[in-house]
């Protein structure tokens, strides 16, 4: 799912490379692009073959379309939803819930992680409590949130947030604890104030951890929103899937899942962008996973 676009190496921008260097670089890139084409074609064949076999099986009656509706039927249903236009409202509400629980969870988790990462006393006091809370299977909180906050937006955001906040917390905490002590000592020797240390040392150093938490958090925020919708709501993608399930409409359930997946992939791409922008200082990975 997280297949990132092949990155052009930052190294290529190094100034003053001679012609022979450029020739070698061009050849290396040619070989790399041939390899990437091969990977893509194989992947396409694999996925395409799978769906073709499914479609053919459904049409030939080898697969019961009541349980496994054909891909064309699922696509047809999705097209119908978008043609009718109601789906936009559902998508919008799920997106809003996702974004709110994501933002609140990440902000809270990052702040908590920074605080506990910087204060040993606070960490010693609070960490066991956090572990206990994290041990609660979050989905089970959904009914409680519905009782507390009703069937609307708030209960969905609350569920998503309780999942996201722990991911953001653990990653930020770890990131702050793993700050290179030599770099830290050097910044102190340059007379950095506490605030400067936070801004120029702790946060940038923890950023790779925080960003990897964002990646997981996006998926989890969507999950929180959809599960909460599924359990009780009047709108949203989870609601659509729940309704389809209620009338044993497998096509509707599959169509809902497909829309949801595309939705998550798009959000993931957005995080990918952000990560590339914020981590320009890191050495390029030795091999790109195309």
């Amino acid at each position, binding site marked *: 799912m997280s297949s990132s676009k092949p990155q052009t190496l*930052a*190294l290529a921008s*190094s*100034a003053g490379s001679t012609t022979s260097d450029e020739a070698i670089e061009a050849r290396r890139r040619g070989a790399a692009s041939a390899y990437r084409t091969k990977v893509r074609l194989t992947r396409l064949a694999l996925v395409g073959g799978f769906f073709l076999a499914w479609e053919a099986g459904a049409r030939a009656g080898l697969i019961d379309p009541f349980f496994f509706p054909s891909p064309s039927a699922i696509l047809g249903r999705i097209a119908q939803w978008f043609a009718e236009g109601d789906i936009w409202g559902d998508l919008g509400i799920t997106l809003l819930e996702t974004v709110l629980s994501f933002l609140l969870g990440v902000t809270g988790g990052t702040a908590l992680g920074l605080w506990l990462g910087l204060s040993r006393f606070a960490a010693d006091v609070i960490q066991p409590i956090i572990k206990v809370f994290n041990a609660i299977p979050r989905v089970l909180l959904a009914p409680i949130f519905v009782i507390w906050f009703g069937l609307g937006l708030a209960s969905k955001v609350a569920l998503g947030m309780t999942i996201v906040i722990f991911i953001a917390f653990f990653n930020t905490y770890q990131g702050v604890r793993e700050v290179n002590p*030599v*770099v830290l*000592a*050097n*910044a102190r*020797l*340059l*007379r*950095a*104030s506490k605030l*400067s240390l936070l801004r*120029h*040392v702790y946060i*940038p*150093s923890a*950023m790779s951890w925080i960003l990897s938490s964002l990646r997981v958090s996006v998926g989890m925020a969507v999950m929180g929103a959809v599960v909460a919708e599924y359990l009780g709501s009047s709108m949203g993608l989870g609601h659509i899937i729940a309704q389809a399930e209620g009338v044993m409409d497998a096509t509707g359930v599959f169509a809902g899942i497909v829309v949801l997946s595309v939705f998550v992939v798009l959000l993931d791409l957005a995080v990918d962008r952000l990560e590339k922008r914020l981590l*320009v*200082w*890191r*050495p390029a990975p030795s091999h790109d996973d195309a």
Partner: protein
Amino acid sequence: MAEERAAVRLHDVAVRFGAFTAVGNMNLTVGDSEFVAVVGPTGCGKSTILNVVTGLLRPAAGEVAVFGKPLEGLNGDSGYMLQQEAILPWKTAEDNVALGLIFRGVAKDEARAKAQGWLARVGLKGFEKRYPHQLSGGQRKRVAMAQTLIMEPRIVLMDEPFSALDVHTRRLMHRILLDLWQADRRSLIFITHDLDEAITLADRVVVMSAGPASRVVGEVEITLPRPRDVSALATTDEFVSLYREIWNLLGAEVEKSYVVQ
């Protein structure tokens, strides 16, 4: 040099870590704009002395005076270049060099402009926007050097700054350091275990005894004329005789440190 003009004066300084005495009865005076190299066997507490001069470490006994005044808290006159890689990997060369100024509250543009000047002085013009991972080890050391010197500290402390570099790069660094020192003439305490390096750079080489409770066992004035030609120096007779003189002091201490280990 006159005592009251001294940039740094350590008088009977002792440093203890619990029951362990790292440095005992240390006496060291560094004159204004003097370049002093401190050599000693491994683990003799050379770095400890720099920590005392910076004010990071309070001595258990003795006095520390900076420009005639007793040192209280952190030393505002010192700049410290660490042995390990210490520049910030998420900042470009120029932002790394500008860092101390930014911490001091200098406006970003002004700090950057000054940092670019310093990068040029250490021979890194054109590398301003590079991140540390895009620089070689020697280039990173030069960024670190500029990062320390841009603050214009009156006392520069260097803790084996070039020990991780290969011989040729190290010689280049010596040349750059000598040029910069020649231009600004700050007081400099340079810790090293490399006698060649100490003789090439310093006005005076101070030899420390093996730990624990290490102290100064002797010092040798380096009379080689300045400015010095780093590459030709090591083969001169004067250099060799200085080397022998210092090794006579140091050799016995190195032997002792092996016995202790």
